[in-house]
């Protein structure tokens, strides 16, 4: 399995991850190598096997529907790169 530089660009866009154009060939080579390694799984017939998501096959635990968290907006925003009047600042989205 081999990925092209264009496919890498597409995946990088999906991941919202800028990568240097001069590095795309390296990523294509590394990922293609990794996909070859991953393809070894296809030697196994897994048709009737249930997928395993949690090592102990635990179900998601439920809790009582009660408020347990207090509002800590100021503390959380104290470490944000750009805030104003309690809002996170981002480039303009709507004109």
């Amino acid at each position: 399995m081999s990925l092209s530089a264009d496919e890498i660009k597409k995946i990088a866009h999906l991941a919202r991850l800028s990568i240097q154009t001069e590095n795309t060939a390296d990523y294509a080579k590394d990922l293609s190598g990794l996909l070859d390694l991953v393809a070894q799984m296809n030697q196994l017939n897994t048709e009737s096997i249930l997928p395993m998501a949690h090592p102990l096959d635990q179900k998601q635990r439920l809790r009582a529907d009660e408020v347990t968290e207090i509002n800590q907006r100021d503390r959380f925003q104290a470490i944000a790169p750009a805030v104003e009047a309690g809002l996170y600042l981002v480039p303009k989205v709507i004109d």
Partner: protein
Amino acid sequence: MIYHQTLTELIKALRSKKISSVELTRLYLDRIHQHADLNAFITVTDTQALADAQRADQQLHQGNAPLLTGIPLAHKDLFCTQGIRTSCGSKMLDNFIAPYQATVVDKLANAGTVLLGKLNMDEFAMGSSNENSFYGAVANPWDQTKVAGGSSGGSAAAVAARLTPAATGTDTGGSIRQPAAFCGVSGLKPTYGRVSRYGMVAYASSLDQGGLFAQTAEDIAILLSVMAGFDAKDSTSVDCPVPDYHATLGNDLRGLKIGLPTVFFNANLNRDIGDCLQQALNEYQRAGAELIEIAMPMLEYAIPAYYVIACAECSANLARFDGVRYGYRCQHPQDLTDLYSRSRGEAFGTEVKRRILMGTYALSSGYYDAYYLKAQKVRRLIAEDFKQAFEQVDVIMAPVTPTTAFGIGEKVQDPIQMYLADIYTIAVNLAGLPAMSIPAGFVNQLPVGLQLIGNYFAESSLLNIAHAYQQRTNWHQLCPPAFR
């Protein structure tokens, strides 16, 4: 010298007033600064450590102090510490001071420990050599031209060089056991769900598990009793009572059945490492244990399954780093997409990007069944292999690494070769089992680790089996010459 003492001995020394916590803390802080060239620490918390030590001494004086009062230790830099930077070895979090604290950090602090600082690691715990850290590689105390291993390289190196009596780490695919083996210290990865993941920066959530490094299994037993336990704040934490791990050390090994997977002990195993492990196995036989060969053919598929599951989960977990709420933000973003893409592109290192790309591809439309779902099915086959094995044996023993510590820079150009070196450790994470690495000898003056794999929640038995070996051998007591 007091810094050669184990944590167990230090507890006694503090209680009998042979040394104060302030003296002990100052001694370790001095050693950390003196050996800064190892690059084991990202942040050293001198002022807070001395303040904590002073408080510990008062408590010890009053006589109502919890067991670990005054014991210095250090955390891998992905456990969130309130008021102290948690970098995760990344430029992304170089400025990140968590507004909350990891449960593990809280538990150890409440037990009276003194925090010396935060330890170096591969960026976001992705790597096997600590060369992926934004803060540079950690040197191996046995030979500073070699890697310390990863991702918890700083933790292993700091314990080996006696810069701290113990350290926390995390293990997603071998990140505690492999550096423990490379640096000649004891390391434990507990059962998945045994230790809270709350406040641990996530890499691959269905595999990540916090654990410990120390000189001995006995030290780890004492610390694990404090660190383990159910935590409502971690939705994957398992509600299962925590035994006193120290109480069962010293149990007899007669009749113990040790399983040896034939897929690991074969012609591919490095001969020198194989010889070391054989000596260790002979020691267990002398202690009355029985060796049994077990097949476990599915273990060969652990690496492919792991790199799908780990990368897929990493790409989802690391989506939170967006340049908006915390962490690195690029200069002058053109629009929202540019803000996300450039903040992430400028702040993540190559290995992290590689795994995000792999994970994004595996989860992208049309590929889910072929990759993530397939890998989860293979994962079950691997777990079933272990289940069957534990019907025949009490513990499984295996190598930890295919070689001793390799040279810094030796493998960075070939990521696939680096991945393949995790062959002996990864299956344990997929199955969610507990496992240890303990020092078992040397090849060319570099340490070799023996891996012990236990059944679910069998940490007590694992620690006892390791402790029995450490009562009969002295590999775990050896300190690198430059740090004696």
